[in-house]
C-alpha cells in the first residue's frame, strides 16, 4: 500500500488530503499518469506539471525518481512559506 498526500490547491482540486492506493507504478511520473487517468478531477489537478512538486518519503524528488520502495508520496505546488 502506498500513501498519497496532497497539499494546498492540489488537495482542494482532488478533494482529499490523502489516500491509500495499490500501485504498480515504478516512478513518480508513472504514478502521476496512473492518477491522472482516473477521472477528470485528477486529470485537471495534474494538468500543469510545471507547477507541481513531489516528495518521496518526505524528501523532494524528481518526476523520474523510483518509488518501488517508497511508502509515502506527496504532491503539492511550489512552496510559499517563510
Amino acid at each position, binding site marked *: 500500500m502506498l500513501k498519497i498526500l496532497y*497539499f494546498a490547491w492540489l488537495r482542494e482540486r482532488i478533494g482529499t488530503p490523502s489516500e491509500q492506493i495499490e500501485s504498480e507504478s515504478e516512478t513518480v511520473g508513472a504514478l502521476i499518469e496512473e492518477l491522472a487517468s482516473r477521472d477528470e478531477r485528477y486529470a485537471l489537478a495534474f494538468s500543469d506539471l510545471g507547477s507541481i512538486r513531489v516528495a518521496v518519503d*518526505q524528501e523532494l524528488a524528481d518526476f523520474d525518481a523510483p518509488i518501488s520502495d517508497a511508502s509515502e508520496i506527496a504532491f503539492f505546488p511550489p*512552496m510559499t*512559506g517563510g
Partner: protein
Amino acid sequence: MAVCIQTEPFSVGQEIKRLTGNRRDIGAVVSFVGVVRDSGKDPLESMVIEHYPGMAEVAIAKIVDEVHRRWNVSDCLVVHRHGNLKPGEEIMMVVTASAHRADAFAAADFMMDYLKTRAPFWKKELRSGGAKWVSSNRADEAASRRWEAETA
C-alpha cells in the same frame, strides 16, 4: 538547535535570550521575522498557512545542518506557525547566533532563502472577494540559487 512548528505565537526576545543565556562565546545574533503583509487593494482578512507535518521538520533540520557546514554558527533556531493568521501577525522566525556578525548574517539570509523554496508550507490569502493560494516567487528561486555556486 531547535525547530518548532506551532500554531501559537512566539516571543523573539525570549528565543534570543534562550540562545545566548549561559554562554560567553556569542557576540552576534541575527533574527528574521516574517509578518503577514497586506499588499492587495481588497483588504486581506487573514492568511492560512498549511504545512506537511513530518516533512516540514525534516526539511528544516536539513537546512540547519547545511548552515552548520557552511558557517561558524554557535546555534540557530527556526519557528514556523501554521493555521489562521491576521495581518501584522508574526508568521515565522529564524535566529542565528555566532561569535561574529558576518557568519550570523549570512546564515540567517541563507536559511530564509532555503526555507522559502524547500520547506513544505503554503499560504492562502482570504479576502472578502475570495480565497487565493499565494504563488511562488521567481525572486525566491533566484535567491535560493545564489548559494549553490558556493557549494562546490
